[in-house]
């Protein structure tokens, strides 16, 4: 958790255990994000398949 006192904003991160699942238990944590088609897509929408997860950017 991080507090920006000047703006009064508090940002709360994802629980560390979720990342531990990836880096220690080697189980891919699920996530749901908006997609370019205007809906949302979850990693688990494609379960029971091999998945190549690609993090990219325009920067």
């Amino acid at each position: 958790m991080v507090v920006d006192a000047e703006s009064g904003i508090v940002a709360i991160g994802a629980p560390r255990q979720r990342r531990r699942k990836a880096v220690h238990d080697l189980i891919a944590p699920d996530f749901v994000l908006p997609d370019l088609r205007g809906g949302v897509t979850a990693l688990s929408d494609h379960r029971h398949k091999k998945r190549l997860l690609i993090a990219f950017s325009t920067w």
Partner: protein
Amino acid sequence: MIAVAIDEDVEKVRGFADNVTFPVLIDADHLLTELYAISNVPTVVMIDVDDTIAYPNWSAFGTDTFKEFTGIDSDTQKDRVRSWVRGEMAPMTEVDARAAVGDLSADEEAARLHFRIAAHLRLAGDASGAERNFNRAAELAPHDWTIRRAMIPLRGGDPFGEEFLELYAEFDAAGRPYHGVTGY
């Protein structure tokens, strides 16, 4: 394939992802970098049918655009992905896979949250509040590209310009830290 843009600009991402048939997701809050300890892009994770991570964070490139910087040959890497998909390449051993990706430090976690606050304040029109939080994020994670380079366009700079080259020099001098494997 599931592509996740660590980016807030949907239209820019759309320009990059024209004609692709796989899902392209927009991760404006950089959630994926938190969940998978990602510090640079492109980072690829190979996930098996049972959700186990066969090959963790891997600095893989689809093209040779950055070969000059990384020394990574994209064709070799694409061949490896194909072998894995066909079942010709066994998953990494658990010991190796665990050793491959260091967890984020508390500072790197906090940097992500300051970045998130900065991006929010920028969109809300609080330029000085955004700067304050971008600066804090950069102090906390000076060699994390998802922080340092991602903020360049949000602060009006050119992510392929002089600032990128300066960042690269700092990153190189620091031993090119990366949460993952730079090519298999």
